[in-house]
């Protein structure tokens, strides 16, 4: 895996007087953070009792919130194969702007990351070019074809943190059973896109009145529910480790609740878009709102927010999926799925916090601590000794998303013109400041 190495060469850093929200230690208090050698030396109300280290850079955190840097476990990048959409470097810069210090990239690149040498390639490219930590998931099946599982053991040794077929579902129950069974021996996490492709068919948005009025064929919620319920049965059968990459329907929450009650090793994620937008946002065929799974109804959105608050949905991701004019500027049904989201993940989440739907601590847990824990990453915490990956946030600052400000190489944000409140003013990776706002 590629983490930016903490190094004694990094100048010590002290952030004073900030509200520190660190769910890994159930900490929410005003205090200071001391960083030495790229690691957390102290973080809390008493952190400065020993005084600041010699030569430290002192940052006044008064009025700001300090959180462990975000860990985004679903990021699509165009490298290798589609570098014009996004490279590991450009994605890492976008991540830094959004307070994300670790990204987990998906294997459905060209070529598909289904071989240890390719995992190695991605991680080396990241080490040489990226400014945040980069981890890779490897393909669950060879060539994402859904037929033969990949070399879980060797891929893990090469650094793969989980296994997924990205946007694709494994339709064969036999193959999924085998992946969960074999994966269990290696402690491998299977991250799956739960959507039954036969039922989803040619659908391009949520099935229902809105799709019918637009003359678009719909994707029924049952496409998700049936696949998720199948997967959960197979987890019960095999004892495997399973993560539903993205869920979108209220009924999926019930399935997850039942799986938890049965003690299964199951987690689930949701994209920030699905917590802040609904199917009506598609409006007049706006393709930047064409996502997979599709945006659902407002009732679903509310149910999903509650499930995140309750912890039944563990993780919030950006599902950052850079697309360009050539794949998006088409009639709705023919346009590609996906939206960029690295720069807006935290801001979108803060919209829920400002609305009183989510506590700040739960938001940070779902975007940082929980994904780090699920993937066994040394991240998502400000505990002493941890790599100093953190974000300093002015959660009151209003701002408007403007296309010309987007750092990501692709511009397909569904939040163009959206008003957010809360901006990352400093992002630190392994003790090094990789982003400030306003820029230094």
């Amino acid at each position, binding site marked *: 895996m590629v983490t930016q190495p903490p190094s004694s060469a990094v100048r010590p850093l002290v952030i004073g007087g900030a509200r520190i929200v660190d769910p890994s230690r159930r900490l929410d208090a005003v205090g200071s953070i001391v960083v030495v050698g790229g690691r957390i030396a102290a973080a809390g109300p008493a952190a400065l009792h020993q005084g600041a280290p010699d030569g430290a850079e002192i940052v006044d955190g008064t009025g700001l919130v300090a959180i462990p840097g975000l860990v985004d476990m679903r990021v699509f990048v165009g490298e290798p194969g589609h570098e014009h959409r996004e490279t590991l470097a450009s994605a890492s810069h976008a991540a830094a702007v959004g307070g994300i210090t670790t990204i987990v990239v998906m294997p459905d690149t060209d070529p598909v990351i289904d071989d240890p040498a390719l995992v190695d390639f991605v991680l080396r490219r990241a080490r040489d070019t990226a400014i945040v930590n980069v981890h890779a998931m490897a393909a669950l099946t060879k060539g994402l074809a859904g037929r033969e599982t990949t070399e879980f053991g060797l891929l893990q040794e090469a650094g793969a943190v989980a296994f997924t077929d990205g946007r694709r579902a494994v339709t064969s129950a036999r193959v999924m059973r085998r992946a969960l069974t074999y994966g269990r021996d290696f402690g491998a996490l299977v991250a799956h896109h739960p959507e039954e492709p036969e039922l989803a068919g040619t659908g391009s948005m949520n*099935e*229902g*009145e*809105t*799709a*019918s*009025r*637009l*003359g*678009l*064929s*719909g994707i*029924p919620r049952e496409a998700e529910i049936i696949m998720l319920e199948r997967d959960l049965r197979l987890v019960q059968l095999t004892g495997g480790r399973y993560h539903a990459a993205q869920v979108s329907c209220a009924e999926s929450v019930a399935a997850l609740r039942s799986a938890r009650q049965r003690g299964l090793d199951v987690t689930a994620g949701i994209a920030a878009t699905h917590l802040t937008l609904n199917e009506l946002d598609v409006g*007049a*065929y706006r393709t930047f709102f064409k996502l997979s799974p599709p945006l659902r109804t407002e009732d679903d959105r509310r149910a999903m927010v509650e499930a995140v608050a309750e912890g039944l949905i563990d993780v919030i991701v950006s599902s950052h999926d850079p697309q360009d004019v*050539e794949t998006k*500027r*088409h*009639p*709705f*049904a*023919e346009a590609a799925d996906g939206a960029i989201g690295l720069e807006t993940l935290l801001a979108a989440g803060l919209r829920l916090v400002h609305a009183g739907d989510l506590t700040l601590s739960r938001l940070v847990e779902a975007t940082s601590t929980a994904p780090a824990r699920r993937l066994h990453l040394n991240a998502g915490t400000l505990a002493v000794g941890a790599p100093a990956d953190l974000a300093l946030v002015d959660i009151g600052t209003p701002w408007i998303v403007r296309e010309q400000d987007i750092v990501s190489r692709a511009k397909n944000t569904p939040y163009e013109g959206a008003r957010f409140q809360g901006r990352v003013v400093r992002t630190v990776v392994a003790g090094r400041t990789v982003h400030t706002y306003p820029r230094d």
Partner: protein
Amino acid sequence: MPAIPAFPHRHLLGIEGLARSEIETLLDLSESAVALSRQVEKKRAVLRGRTQINLFFEASTRTQSSFELAGKRLGADVMNMSVGSSSVKKGETLVDTAQTLNAMRPDILVVRHHAAGAVALLARQVGCSVVNAGDGAHEHPTQALLDALTIRRNKGTIADLTVAICGDILHSRVARSNILLLAALGAEVRVVAPSTLLPSGIDRMGVKVFRTMREGLDGADIVMMLRLQRERMDGSYVPSVREYFHYFGLDEEKLGYAKPDALVMHPGPMNRGVEITPAVADGPRSLIGEQVEMGVAVRMAVLEALAGNLPNG
């Protein structure tokens, strides 16, 4: 202050968004176009010097020739382009095609495309007026207008009539535009189809939903049949042609459920023996021939209404 024009739109992309008065303006304009088209001298000069391009990404004899005649009768230079195969195969996108054509400075683009929303997408890329001649399963506004004109000429009104739209509602842009238009003019709109051919949420679109012809046609003034595409008859949506015809094909017996003076319509092209019997299609209560005539008139009316708002005017 200048008077608000009777039809203040640059494009006609759908029935949705049109006010009742605007629909009636178009129908009234159509009446004079009918009269004009029945004269020896059919030409007017409303569009003289204007260029109209019929851009059809989907083949259509009836609609394309109807728009061509309408444009020519109003004096426009009309060019037909079938883009179904050539450019699309070369990887040119819809937007590329739109921008290429826009550079040739047409005044009106008449567009048919197989994808819902495609015509609206194209309209955002060009500087001229755009008429939707059918976009996927979304809308086909001139078809709904010609249907309304045909009904109004035969029944004297549309308000308070009961219109049963029967068949493949799911894939039909004709059904969607008709539902919007007929409801706007005060008709009771029913849809009659097997559940596999009904879109989800149809009951919230202001229609009454029926699954049998006996119930759906009971008391209807107008029976509007829709075409069932051949690829949908093979077990994917209905099990077979003969079963579909048995339950939903319009024959004289099923027509008997409707009012004694009920009239029959079909947007064409028909599958005789699938959704309608030849005896009904060609019988005394059929308005199918008149619909075609009204098609030219309605398209003349639409082009004339847009002529007042054309750019470079």
